[in-house]
């Protein structure tokens, strides 16, 4: 379970990105976070994997008290999560295969498991043939899918995806959303910040709308725009 209590986030330059955010996301939910550009979606998501700490309020992710945990515990938190970053964040000097495998090496998976699992997820995102390419040799959408594969590879309890389909054509985006729905059915919690109106309207799951750092709407079977 993810819980945010009265969370404020003010960046060092004084910009208030989130204010008074109260939020509970239960295990197994599928949540869209929507809102205009610069409304605070990424800021919210970054609190969950503790890239940023809130300036006020508390954040809990399962047993982790994110706002109070020791620095040395952070890797344990992050291993519970699979994160697709808005800016992808691939390791530029490693191949597609290695980028995905790295996430497994980090958790100490065996070489055999890695050799078995990595091709599977690459196949899932349609990059089975590109395993030996380097990130700079991929198209924007291909890079994004490597990021998705990396997030999925450890079968995370929480999948946190920040604008994962921004560089994907509608058909590929559709494939990806079906993939997310599938792993959600198998028990994973999915949190997806997105601008993809069609996808949000199509799958009819919980929608959390943010504007100017405040949660302005929270509907269980919502749409991208207010009904």
């Amino acid at each position, binding site marked *: 379970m993810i819980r945010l209590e009265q969370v404020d986030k003010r960046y060092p330059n004084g910009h208030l990105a989130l204010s008074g955010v109260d939020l509970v996301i239960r295990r197994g939910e599928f949540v869209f976070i929507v809102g205009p550009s610069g409304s605070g979606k990424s800021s919210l998501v970054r609190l969950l994997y503790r890239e940023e700490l809130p300036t006020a309020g508390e954040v809990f992710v399962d047993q982790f008290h994110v706002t109070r945990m020791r*620095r040395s515990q952070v890797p344990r938190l992050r291993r519970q999560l699979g994160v697709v*970053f808005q800016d992808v964040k691939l*390791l530029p000097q490693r191949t597609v295969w290695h980028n995905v495998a790295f996430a497994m090496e*980090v958790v100490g998976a065996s070489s055999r498991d890695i050799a078995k699992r990595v091709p599977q997820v690459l196949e899932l995102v349609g990059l089975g043939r590109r395993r030996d390419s380097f990130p700079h040799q991929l198209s924007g959408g291909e890079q994004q899918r490597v990021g998705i594969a990396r997030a999925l590879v450890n079968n995370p309890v929480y999948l946190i995806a920040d604008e994962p389909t921004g560089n994907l054509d509608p058909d590929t985006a559709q494939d990806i959303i079906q993939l997310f729905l599938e792993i959600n059915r198998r028990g994973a919690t999915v949190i997806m910040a997105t601008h993809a109106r069609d996808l949000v309207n199509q799958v009819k799951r919980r929608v959390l709308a943010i504007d100017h750092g405040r949660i302005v709407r929270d509907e269980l079977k919502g749409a991208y725009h207010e009904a």
Partner: protein
Amino acid sequence: MRPKTLWYFGRETGYGLWRNGWMTLASVSTVAISLFVLAFFIVLSVNLNHIATTLESEVEIRVFIHQKIPRQTELNLLKQAKGWPIVRKISFFTKSQAAHQLQSEFPDQKALLQLINQSNPLFDGYDVYAHHPSQIGVIARRFRRLPIVQSVVYEGLVAKRINRVTEVVRAVGWGIEALLALATLSIISNTIRLAVFARRREIGVMKLVGATDWFIRWPFVLEGTVLGLVGAAAADVAVNYGYRWAIRAAVAAMPFWPVAPLHLVLQHTIGVTVIMGLVIGGIGSLVAVRRFLHV
């Protein structure tokens, strides 16, 4: 650490060095060059030390024997004194040898030479060499106590000066080495910092994917260590060949000049460069990576 993790770190290290080929080259060559400069001056200072030691050993005492002492007694003392541990070298000279020396020192003082040739007023005696200038006084006293010894002469001032100079040379040598070691240290660690800096984003990504600090640090530290070690090896190879050449050149140009032997030199340089390379390479990376681990 499990063998699997070890293997992972080893592979990561090699991988990092390989993928950053160009940067690796720049860093290794910087390390090698600074270590070579350091080694070069260790070589110099080993040689200065060697010269100082040689100079010191030139400090001698001249012992004169009463006239009319039988040659046998004189040679007995020679034999005996050779056994004294503080005596490094002792050689006997007769009064005619002393006269010859005087002649060669004042070749144009004809009247003086005439006098010497007529009735040599000089004495038999010994040239005694000490191991260390500080022992000269002891040796002199010991000889003075012997009844057959007429007088003991030693050049106190020159000995003191040489002593002083060698002390200073040694101190300066140490000072230079310390300075260079410091310079090398900061150059190497700056280099490694710049290299790590160029990869700071990579470190951030690794952390966000769930890597522990140590998981990220180890390959970097190993990389730094390998970098330092390769640099050190390159420097040592250069010193080895360079010094062989220098010895040959020195012997040809100045046969009288005392040159420290190769093994003595390598012994010092290899020790210092390898330790510096290893330690600074490793610790430098450790420190450099730390800056970027707080993500």
